[in-house]
C-alpha cells in the first residue's frame, strides 16, 4: 500500500481534534504509556464500574499515529466490559502484528490504522495506547512498547 494513505483524513482529524482528551479527577484506574523510541507518552484515566468502562480519557505528547489511535480507542472501548476491551486490545494488536491474512472488518473504523503494519517503526506508536489500557485495567501502573516481544522481533530500527 502507499505510505500516503497512513495519514488519511480520519487520522489527521483525530490528531487535530482528539476525542476524550483530558483527565478525570479520581479515576479508578490509571496508567502511563511510554515509547522510548520516539518519546511518545500518554496518560490514560479510566473509571470502571462493575467491570465496565464507564469513562475513559487520555492526554499526552505523541505523534499523530499514537494520538489518533488513542482517540479512536477511547471511543471504541467506552461502555464496554473489561472482557470485551481485553478482546479488542488483542484483536487490534493482531491486526498490526499478525502475519496471517485475517479479516479485521469487525474492527470497523479502527481498520484505518491497519496500514501502519507496513511501517514497522510506527507499529509501536499505534499500539501504545492499547498497551496502556491493558496496564490501566490491570493496575500495573505503566506500559512500555519495549515489553512486547512480538513488537521487538519485528524489524524495528531501535537505534538507541
Amino acid at each position, binding site marked *: 500500500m502507499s505510505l500516503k494513505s497512513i*495519514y488519511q483524513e480520519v487520522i489527521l482529524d483525530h*490528531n487535530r481534534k482528539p476525542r476524550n482528551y483530558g483527565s478525570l479527577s479520581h479515576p479508578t484506574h490509571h496508567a502511563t504509556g511510554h515509547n522510548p523510541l520516539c518519546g511518545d507518552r500518554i496518560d490514560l484515566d479510566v473509571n470502571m464500574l462493575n467491570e465496565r468502562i464507564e469513562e475513559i480519557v487520555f492526554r499526552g505528547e505523541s505523534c*499523530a*499515529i499514537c494520538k489518533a489511535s488513542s482517540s479512536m480507542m477511547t471511543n471504541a472501548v467506552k461502555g464496554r466490559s473489561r472482557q470485551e476491551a481485553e478482546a479488542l486490545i488483542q484483536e487490534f494488536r493482531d491486526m498490526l502484528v499478525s502475519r496471517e491474512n485475517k479479516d479485521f472488518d469487525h474492527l470497523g473504523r479502527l481498520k484505518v490504522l491497519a496500514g501502519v503494519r507496513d511501517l514497522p517503526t510506527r507499529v509501536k*506508536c499505534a499500539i501504545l495506547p492499547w498497551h496502556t489500557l491493558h496496564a490501566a485495567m490491570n493496575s500495573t501502573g505503566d506500559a512500555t512498547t519495549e515489553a512486547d516481544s512480538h513488537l521487538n522481533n519485528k524489524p524495528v530500527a531501535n*537505534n*538507541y
Partner: protein
Amino acid sequence: MKIVDTLVTSSAQQTTTVPGIGQFRADFPILDIKVDDKPLIYLDNAASSQMPQAVIDCLVRYQKTQHANIHRAVHYLSNLATQEYEAARCKLQNFIGAREDREVIFTSGTTDSINLVMHGYGRKFIQRGDEIILSELEHHSNIVPWQMLAEERGAHIRVAPINDAGELLVEEYEKLFNSKTRFVALSHVSNALGSINPIKRMIAIAHQHDVPVLIDGAQAAPHLKIDVQDLDCDFYAFSAHKMCGPTGIGILYGKAHLLESMQPFKGGGDMIASVSFEKTTYNEIPYKFEAGTPPIAAAIGFGAAIDYLEQIGLDAIADYEHELLLYASEQIRMIPGVKIIGDCPDKVAVISFVIDGIHPHDVGTLLNQEGIAVRTGHHCAQPIMQRFNVAATSRASFSFYNTKKEIDALVAGIRSVQKVFAQ
C-alpha cells in the same frame, strides 16, 4: 531530453563550488536506488554513512583472495591477512597523527572503545568519591558506561552545561574541576545538534588538573581533520561506519603509557603472552585489548575507507560540507513554523529541527514517502532533548556526496509535510 540533461548538469555544477568534489557521488552505488519510485535522498549520515565502491571492492577482494585468521598460523593466507590488518592499523595511525601504531586499538566501534576505557582505565583507577566530568551534549554511549562505573565505584558524575545555541560553556566546565576530579569524557561533535566543541581548550584545562580526557570522535572523524597529538587528548574513539567504512569496526586511540597502565577489558585468545592455570601474562598493546578473532575484513575495509577519504582530502570535505550546512540552514530557517535546535556558528553539517504542531516521527514518515531519509527521535541523546524541552527532533545530516539540489528537495518535503497537517 537534451535540455533536461543540460539543466541537470548545470545544477550539478552549481552545487560543486569546491573543485571536483561532486564527482565522488558517483562512487556510491546505493545513492542510485529509488524509494517508492522517488530517487533516494540520504540525509541520515550522522547515523551511518554509505559505502563507496572502492570499499565494497576491498571487502570482496579480501574475502575472495586474502582471508584467514590473523596473528596465528604460518601459512600464506594468514600472513597476508595479518599484513593487511596491520596495514589498516597504520592507515588509522596516520589518519589521526598518532605517534605509534600500537596506540591504535581495533574495537567494534565507538561504544566499544568507550566501554574499553571505562573497564580498563576507570575500574582500575577510579575510586569512591571520585568525580567524572561529562558534558550535556553527550550521546548515551558516553554517558551510560560512566554511570555504570560511578554506581559500581561510588563515584560521581558532573555535567558541563551548554547554552541555548548548543555551545558548551567552557567557563562552567572549568569550575567543575576539583581535587576529586579523575576523568573527563567529552564528545568532539554533538551527534544531535552538530556543535563542534572547543575540545583542545577543554583538554588543556583538564591537563592543568592532571586529569586524562577521552574524546568521543564518532561525529567528528568523518568531517574534520583529526590530529591527536595536537589535541593532546589521552583517548580518542570513532567508528568506521560513519565514515564510508563497514559496521562492526572502530578504533580507540590511547597514549601508549596510559594503555599500558590499564587492565584488559576482554579476556581470550590473542590478548595473552602466555597462559597456564596458575598465571596468565598479557600481551603487549594493542593486542592486550584485542581478544578473540576481530572482524578482519571490516578492519581492512576501514583502511580502504581511510584511503578513500584521504584521496578526497578531509579539508576539502569540511569546506564543501560547511557550504551545504550554510545553504541548508538558510533555507530551513526561512520556512515559517520550523525551528532549528542548536544553531551555533561552529557546527558540522547536521541540522536538528522541529516543526510546530507536528511530531518528528510523522515528519520522518512523510519525508520518507518523498524518498528523503532523515533521522527522527531523541538521537540517543535524551539529556539534550530535555535541555531544549522537546521529546524528539528531526535531524538532517549531510555528507560530501549530498548536493544543494537534495537540500531543496528536503525543504520542499518539509513544506509538503506542513501541508498534510494543515488539511
